[in-house]
């Protein structure tokens, strides 16, 4: 009797270990789609296997062996290949690792194949997905991947004068007389708010403006309240906002409440917190050629180019977009991280997906760009 509980615990632990070993890898598997795993087959007799070999080696950063899975006809070399997969200039890609992938054939003949791969990256800002198309060819009895030429951005040597403003913050010491050095927090106002139900739960979104003449670090909080006046949940905008707002700058915000339905919500309490922070008006990033198009998967996507108009490298750029209906009401807020660094005076494309449920309502949009530069807070 006294051994029953330990035996049950041991059996349960063993069962969970077995489940973890064999179950987790197939958790996101989809019929007809090859999912990424650590299985490597030396001789790739199918395009799926060849691509899998390449991506497994990329995952393991086994670059020499990965290059053997690349066709000689590829317009790339080992260094460019590595930089393509590991990132450069302190970009988001250089802090990321390939967690997994799913590939599906688009077109296969006896000698050539076209594969589409959904890459799952783990990054400091959360999981990111990327879709890439690969061309494979049969060389003898082995399939190999043909890699296109990687266009790594480069900037010619130049001097770019920068004369934009910077705001520094001087704080009084503890010995200062009470009230002698009070500096008010920036005046920030929520200018619109909309609450909707989405597939994942309730979403509260809108726009916030810094009405002051000093920069502000802004966070928007929302509390959902039920009919009895009790708080159901309390969340913040987290990274779905441009936190540092310069004077008169407007940012979208989005607050997600997973697994909550708005029919249970009677009221939404909004709270915006602003703190005075040092900031710089540089770099200025222009958002060019913005247009909404359908991508290869039929999804509505806002495309554009980020143009770094300053002389400083932007390591990670983060795009936050508010989408408006024909009454100028914010119907959705979406964001996306650019995984390549933005070099001075250079541009990089971005894309932000619009959910199918709101795509038809979107009439206009407003894009803001968060930027993170190494060595600057």
């Amino acid at each position, binding site marked *: 009797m006294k051994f029953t509980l330990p035996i049950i615990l041991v059996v349960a632990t063993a069962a969970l270990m077995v489940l973890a070993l064999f179950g987790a890898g197939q958790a996101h598997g989809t019929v007809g789609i090859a999912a990424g795993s650590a299985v490597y087959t030396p001789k790739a007799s199918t395009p799926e296997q060849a691509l899998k070999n390449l991506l497994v080696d990329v995952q393991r950063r086994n670059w020499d062996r990965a290059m053997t899975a690349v066709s000689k006809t590829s317009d790339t070399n080992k260094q460019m290949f590595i930089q393509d997969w590991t990132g450069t200039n302190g970009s988001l890609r250089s802090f990321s690792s390939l967690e997994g992938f799913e590939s599906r054939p688009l077109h296969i003949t006896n000698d050539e194949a076209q594969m589409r791969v959904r890459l799952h990256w783990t990054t400091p800002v959360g999981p990111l997905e990327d879709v890439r198309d690969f061309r494979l060819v049969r060389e003898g009895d082995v399939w190999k991947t043909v890699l296109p030429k990687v266009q790594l951005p480069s900037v010619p040597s130049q001097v770019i004068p920068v004369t934009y403003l910077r705001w520094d913050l001087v704080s009084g010491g503890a010995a200062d007389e009470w009230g002698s050095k009070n500096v008010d927090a920036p005046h920030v106002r929520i200018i619109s708010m909309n609450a909707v139900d989405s597939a994942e739960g309730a979403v509260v979104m809108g726009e916030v403006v810094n009405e002051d003449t000093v920069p502000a670090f802004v966070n928007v909080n929302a509390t959902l309240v039920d009919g009895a006046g009790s708080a159901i949940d309390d969340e913040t905008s987290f990274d779905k906002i441009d936190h540092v707002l310069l*004077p008169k700058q*407007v940012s979208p915000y989005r607050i997600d409440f997973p697994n909550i339905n708005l029919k249970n919500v009677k009221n939404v309490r909004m709270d915006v917190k602003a703190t005075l922070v040092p900031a710089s008006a540089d770099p200025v990033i222009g958002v060019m050629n913005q247009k909404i198009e359908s991508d290869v998967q039929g999804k509505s996507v806002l495309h554009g180019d980020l143009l770094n108009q300053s002389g400083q490298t932007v390591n990670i750029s983060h795009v936050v977009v508010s989408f408006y209906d024909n009454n100028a009401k914010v119907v959705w807020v979406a964001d996306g991280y650019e995984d390549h660094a933005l070099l001075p005076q250079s541009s990089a494309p971005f894309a932000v997906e619009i959910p199918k449920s709101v795509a038809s309502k979107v009439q206009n949009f407003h894009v803001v760009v968060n930027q993170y530069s190494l060595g600057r807070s």
Partner: protein
Amino acid sequence: MRRPLLICAVLCLAACSIAGVAQDLRVPASVTAGEEATIPTTGSGKATFYLVGPGVSRKNDVSLGEEIHLQGQDLRNAGDYLALVCSDTCHTGTFYVIAAKPSSLTFLVHPSRVPVGQGDAISGVAFPFDQFKNLVLAPATVTFQLAVGDKPLFSRPVRAQNGVAWFRTASGKSAGLVQVIASLDDVTAKRAVQQVASEPCNLRITGQRIPIGVLVQTEPVHDCAGNVVPDGTIVTFSATEANGKSTVDAPIKQGIARAQMEASGTTVVSAASGVVMGNELRIGGKP
């Protein structure tokens, strides 16, 4: 503040009642903080003297028939004090220590930045304190003044009640630093309020086509009172053409915001700063 003292007094009196008969001690009616005082005693022999007050608790032996000297440092805190002399019986007396003359003004002004032309936008509150940091409750007149440089804008004497004097006024018409001064006799406290330009007014843009797109810029950006909007204020330029839109959040520099945007066809450019919209500009396509 007075409750612990009251409890102390009650406990002492209860102790005295048990021991013997409590009699009144002739204590001064009121004492000014930091000043010395004396308490006369009658009789002869040794006794024990207790002094209990805000932040003070003292016990020492005294000779009956002689005056008990209270040092200024024992009477620095304003409030109720209990004096107790015990030999065979206990004698008690209570007295009040009032704040000394004001030696400093704690002056709070809100806000530190204010847009021009706002009604009741600036407020200030002053608390007079003596040299021992006691709030001075005695009526006194605090004069509040607003000045730009040496030029006075506003002066208002306010009678302090219960140790508080306050004012409220509108912000001025011109951006710049405003000195806010509170004075009471020879005591003065100064604070500064930054009056800043209000929302941009008549935001107007001009533009021209350049080889890589369009170059647009604002005319000098002012508020409706004619103050220059501070540098660093963001102006959002939007250039819309048939096949897309470009936007740039450009900071104002030396009164003007400027942006270059990619556009090849006929382009409509608009500008906004915060919630204020500017004019629209139509620029023809590349020839």
